[in-house]
């Protein structure tokens, strides 16, 4: 009898010990969680307990989207910008799109994709220099490796074996991003003829990137250079046909949509 009682006691002791361990384990876990996510976490948890009205909770979400009340984008040129968006739109529908369609009808997609890859490979100096300027050494090395592999095995960049076989993704950087990386804000928004949405900072980046683009050193005259840039644009549009239209269909105010999308996209690229 006493033997059995003793045995029971040992079991209870073990149980108590394990329970203490679990309690410690759980409490330490919670402590970590609270430290990790900061005060807002606990505050929100409390809110949930007290079951408050939905509209109050809404405030917490709304904060995330507060910076869009127009002070997010500085736009003193809005009149001109809207006008230029309209001009670019007409140019797209009346000129660029029909030309790109014809071109896409004649030249097979695989060839057009190769042309696009070749051009991207050729403008490697833009990515190389801008990665370097932002002291992104790993990405600079990646870009150099990609350029070497794709220019040789990839036959002058017509193919992208670095990505398809090696899984090495390109590290897109331009001078506008470099300026942004060092804290320069976008300045006001500007819609450029043909090129579309831009801002003061990214416009300032156009010239350095132009001079870093080897295509502009092939010795062709001005007309030849324009032809190359135009050709590249047509090639690009032919590969992305209907994307512009799809964006336009979603928008209530197409200019505002394009402006916001451009600025948000640039902000993300700079942060990366």
């Amino acid at each position, binding site marked *: 009898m006493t033997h059995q009682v003793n045995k029971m006691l040992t079991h209870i002791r073990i149980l108590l010990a*394990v329970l203490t361990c679990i309690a410690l384990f759980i409490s330490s876990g919670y402590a970590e969680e609270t430290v990790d*996510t900061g005060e807002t976490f606990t505050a929100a948890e409390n809110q949930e307990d007290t079951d408050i009205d939905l509209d109050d909770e809404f405030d917490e979400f*709304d904060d995330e989207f507060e910076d869009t009340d127009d002070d997010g984008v500085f736009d003193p040129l809005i009149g001109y910008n809207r006008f230029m968006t309209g001009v670019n739109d007409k140019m797209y529908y009346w000129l660029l799109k029909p030309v790109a369609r014809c071109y896409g009808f004649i030249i097979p997609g695989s060839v057009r994709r190769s042309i696009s890859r070749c051009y991207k490979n050729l403008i490697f100096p833009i990515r190389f220099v801008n990665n370097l300027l932002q002291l992104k050494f790993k990405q600079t090395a990646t870009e150099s490796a990609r350029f070497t592999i794709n220019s040789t095995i990839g036959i002058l960049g017509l193919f992208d074996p670095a990505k398809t076989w090696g899984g090495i993704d390109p590290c897109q950087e331009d001078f506008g991003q470099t300026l942004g990386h060092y804290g320069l804000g976008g300045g006001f928004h500007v819609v450029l003829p043909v090129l579309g949405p831009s801002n003061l900072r990214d416009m300032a980046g156009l010239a350095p990137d132009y001079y870093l683009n080897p295509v502009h050193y092939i010795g062709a005259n001005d007309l030849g250079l324009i032809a190359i840039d135009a050709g590249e644009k047509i090639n690009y549009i032919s590969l992305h046909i209907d994307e512009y239209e799809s964006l336009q269909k979603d928008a209530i105010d197409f200019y505002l949509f394009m402006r916001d999308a451009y600025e948000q*996209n640039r902000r993300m690229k700079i942060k990366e």
Partner: protein
Amino acid sequence: MNRLLYGILFLLIMSPFAVASDTDEAEKLIKSKLEEMFAVLQKTDQTEEERNSRVIEIIEPAFDFERMAKLTLGRKHWPGLAKEKKKQFTDLFVKRLKESYLGKLNLYTNERIVYKPPIQVKTRVHVPTELISKDNVIDILYKLYKTKDKKWLIYDLEIQGVSIIKTYKTQFDQVLRSGTIDDLLAKLENPEK
């Protein structure tokens, strides 16, 4: 007696492992929804309408469309609206969101999705993914929150860094600054004008 004790012990020891973390739960939801959707997209024996209704069936429970409608009007415009206008706006906005989502399906074929580690942002979770096509990579970020009944729902999407809520919010704000809610409802109803 012994068995019971060990049973309780076992349960006690295992229970901490049964509770998945927030980020895991949110990621699991996104993964299962996208897998289901891609399975539908890869089917060839269906009309576009059939495909669309199947896709909507899959994604609808994962989105909090009402909250999205509310967020796009924001604190500035939403609280002042009459109840029936709120409802009208929500219905039109949700319809439009779905249409634009379905419209995008025609643009893409044979994509692959790569999941990146989810990020806990305050009480919410962001699940970053990459949609990889032939020679394009598109970043899509799913933003989720946990409802009171512990379900995870999507309240915003960021495509290439562009937030759906933010872009709609700017546009709606512009319309409401120079017009009334009826102007906005009219524009939502007839997108061509």
